[in-house]
């Protein structure tokens, strides 16, 4: 199985990287840009007997290591193959 994990700064937490990117986009002339947040994209492969078990494992991995629950949110997708 292959998992794609997205980790982003939690809403309400200052994201200076996102703000800097938003500023750069505006100075490039992309005036309609609103909130920009910069996070992390992680792919990982894992062996699991079912998609449900893979999802449970990935959730644990996110909670224990990939994201810091104090400041970050995560989402993920699991695909067979």
């Amino acid at each position, binding site marked *: 199985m292959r998992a794609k994990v997205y980790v982003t700064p939690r809403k309400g937490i200052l994201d*200076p990287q996102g703000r800097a990117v938003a500023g750069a986009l505006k100075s490039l002339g992309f005036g309609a840009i609103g909130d920009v947040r910069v996070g992390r994209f992680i792919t990982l492969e894992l062996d699991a007997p079912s998609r449900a078990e893979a999802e449970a494992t990935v959730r644990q991995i996110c909670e224990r290591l990939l994201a810091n629950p104090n400041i970050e949110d995560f989402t993920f997708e699991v695909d067979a193959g």
Partner: protein
Amino acid sequence: MKWGVVRFPGSLDDGDALWALRDVLGQEAFPLWHKDETLGGAECVVLPGGFSYGDYLRCGAIARFSPIMKSVARFAADGGLVLGICNGFQILCEAHLLPGALTRNRSLAFICDFVNLRVENAATPFTRAARAGAVLRMPIKHGEGCYVAPEDELRQLEERGQILLRYIDENGEATDAANPNGSMRSIAGVANERFNVFGLMPHPEHAVEATLGGIAGRKIFESIAGVAR
């Protein structure tokens, strides 16, 4: 007093911490390796500054799972004194031994400078050699020192006196301009609820000799050493 200074791969300031403790302050101090499972009889464990594990993923996120951290967590749970400086502070937050987290400086720049700090609570093992309200001048050098915590957590930290140090200006005010990294409520250092674990972004070990810019950092080490005497 016996001090153990933990060396993680990527630690930088372990040597300076040992120098400050042994050569300047006459303490008994020894290095501990991150793969050690015991603390060698240390009465205070120091997690030094640096870039443990290259700051991969998040600062302190990988170091937190080093074998020695299990012993450090047990030691802290038994009331042992733990001091985290800079990267050590980040590791303690990642390990949930301290509340909150340290994020990218709001300027996005790595900052290397002297800051003025006000002692907010002098009735702790880490600050008792100073007076409440005393100003300590110490260096900072970090890219991820912006302290954040949920609003209700911050309120509790204030109420319990867990905020030990704040960034202030030359007039003693915790102004936005004097806040180098955007830390919430100008927090430079916090303790846990039991006041036996303390983390701070400034470097007391770099502020122990007058020729190197000041000796205010001694107050932190002298506070701790005094407790065990």
